[in-house]
């Protein structure tokens, strides 16, 4: 036996959680919402999901190959981006929309800034907002064979009565993955149970939003009005799966609360006061941009450091 052995710095053991199995669990947690989307919107939805995921992964692969960087598609983060983008598209979009959106999300939002962990904005939402601005008519066409009217959120805005129960189950028009509050919450439960996402951001987001809508929505704290707001549009998908995106949310405990509150306020503003019925995507990407600032001012005081001591040190 050789007498010289490998050495390394402590600790000499590691947990089992890796980046790729975290991303894998996020994919699994999105399955209920994805499945319901396919059930609700049919084959069109399935094709869009496949195209979106495949082109996101391919875009990452080609970009990294072209630049001679290590290929990181094995960490599944590109697949998560592709799936989230697909869930944010209406089932009526033409085939090239998910491809264009995924390529933009991966290359322009994620890779150009340095790849995984360096993007300043959620790639899927960056891709979606790019498509919304470039092709507004295509991106807001929610009329399918099953659902001929406007989305429940648009109805809500125009004062038309909506069926809250249908919204919670998801039997309404909308983007592929956002309609079923039930399926999204089910998926989020998986992530909570595994400790992959924490409660702070989604809950401060939702609570702030509820208070805002209650105060400024024009209907007060009317139960069915607020429930319709919660179940409608991308709020649930956004709060549980996109606001909690690791890369683009604050890592400081206080920062997370502030981030959730800002999200709630912005979403409330966009929905109640803005011209559009929906505002979750924009609220999240704007809040993403505030993250470095939030983190800078919320560095926690270390264990045993007292307030006075901090001033003296400065």
């Amino acid at each position, binding site marked *: *036996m050789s*007498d*010289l*052995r*490998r*050495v*390394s*710095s*402590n*600790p*000499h*053991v*590691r*947990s089992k*959680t*890796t*980046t790729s*199995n*975290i991303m894998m669990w996020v994919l699994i947690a999105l399955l209920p919402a994805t499945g319901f989307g396919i059930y609700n919107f049919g084959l069109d939805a399935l094709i869009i999901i496949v195209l979106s995921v495949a082109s996101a992964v391919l875009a990452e692969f080609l970009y990294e190959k072209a630049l001679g960087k290590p290929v*990181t598609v094995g*960490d599944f*983060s590109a697949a998560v981006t592709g799936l989230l983008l697909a869930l944010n598209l209406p089932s009526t979009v033409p085939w090239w929309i998910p491809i264009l959106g995924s390529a933009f999300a991966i290359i322009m939002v994620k890779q150009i800034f340095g*790849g*995984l*962990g*360096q993007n300043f904005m959620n790639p899927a939402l960056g891709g979606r907002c790019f498509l919304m601005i470039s092709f507004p008519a295509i991106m807001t066409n929610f009329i399918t064979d099953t659902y001929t009217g406007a989305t429940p959120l648009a109805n809500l805005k125009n004062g038309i009565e909506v069926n809250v129960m249908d919204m919670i189950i998801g039997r309404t028009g909308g983007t592929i993955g956002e309609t079923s509050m039930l399926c999204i919450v089910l998926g989020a439960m998986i992530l909570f149970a595994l400790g992959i996402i*924490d409660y702070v951001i989604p809950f401060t987001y939702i609570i702030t939003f509820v208070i805002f809508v209650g105060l400024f929505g024009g209907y007060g704290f009317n139960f069915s009005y607020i429930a319709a707001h919660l179940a409608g549009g991308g709020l649930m998908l956004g709060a549980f799966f996109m606001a909690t995106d*690791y*890369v*683009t*949310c604050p*890592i*400081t*405990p206080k920062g997370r609360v502030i981030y959730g509150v800002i999200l709630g306020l912005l979403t409330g503003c966009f929905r109640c006061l803005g011209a559009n019925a929906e505002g979750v995507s924009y609220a999240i990407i704007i809040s993403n941009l505030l993250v470095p600032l939030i983190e800078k001012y919320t*560095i*926690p*005081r*270390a*264990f*045993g*450091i007292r307030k006075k*001591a901090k001033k003296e040190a400065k």
Partner: protein
Amino acid sequence: MARGTFTGGIHPYEGKELSKDKPIKAVLPKGDLVYPLSQHIGAPAKPIVSVGDHVLTGQMIAEAGGFVSAPIYATVSGTVKSIEPRRLATGAMCNSIIVENDGNYDEVEFKPAKPYEEMTPEDKINAVRQAGVVGMGGAGFPTAVKFAPKEPDKIDYVIANCSECEPYLTSDYRRMIEEPELLLEGLKIAVSIFPNARGILAIEDNKPDAIAKFKELTKDEDKISVKPVRTKYPEGAERMLIYACTGREINSSMLPADVGCIVDNVDTLCAVCRAVKEGRPLMERIVTITGDAVADPRNYKVRIGTNYRELLEDAGGFVTEPAKIISGGPMMGFAVFDLDVPTTKTASALTCLTKDEVSALEPSACINCARCVEVCPERLIPKNLADAVEHGNDKAFLEMYGMECCECGCCSYICPARRQLTQLIKGMRKIQLANRKK
């Protein structure tokens, strides 16, 4: 406000079942004994023997090199063979006294300076200083210095650190099970040094038998109590343990005495008892030889200075070729590249693992998941600190309290991107500490 735990921390695989049920075995050294002159924090000890001298077991061979220092005693009888630099488990070279064992174990006569009942606190502290007792949990801070804070009447707790949160290690546990009276006596002596102090035995709740035993032993003691603390790594880190037991917080530039606490490890308190009551210097400690690569993992009562290889041979050697050998436990221990190193006052274990989970790891991009923030017991942002180190940004590192890091390893353990966070932060801390000395 004692919560029994702290925020953050991790639950690594414990591995304690390998060695926890086997009794401690006393082992006599065969080869030469090596006594490094720096087995403690502070000035190295100064040799008071020369090559060729005959020494007895329990004879002082090096005296304290300053106030914060500790003398070193021979643990066998024999001849001083040489005084030369030898390699330590940490990888550093250290000037050491090498004694050739004559196998007779002739002892000097041990007797306390005074009968215990007549001893003043100063006498007790002197006995501890004279015996060369240092913190045997790993840091090696001279215990006599710890026992002599500026205002002894402000000390209200002496905490016996029986938590043993480091995975695989069972030396403190075995000591608690086999020699509880010795530990308790040591704690009582420490408490008696301070006029207003009470003793706490802080035991992690994964050792219910030890907790029960000490509850039974202390049921008539009004100054000693048992405090079960939650099983979580690093519960036994000094700052975390003080918080768990008293709710008081200290930072890296404070001493436990600043919040009225004294913390001592199990072996240390046993050594205190021996030093004060019997006048015996610190000569032995319990060392865990463990890991899945070892044939018969167990605890040994070792004469300090014994070569690790001898202990390993007694434990039946390796069943499989180990990929990594660690002096200490897997969270805070030092990986050794050579087994020919001596046990020291602070050597708690030798952990031999068949898998090297770490050396070949390729760190990938940080995904900002904040797991390191959640587990950091010091409430730091390890990710930002490591980034500051990678960018060579000393200023940011210091501003974000980088020096508060206790190097417990939780951040590296939990990191899903496998970044070497602890290593980066530790490296920068070393640089900063060296700069401070300049």
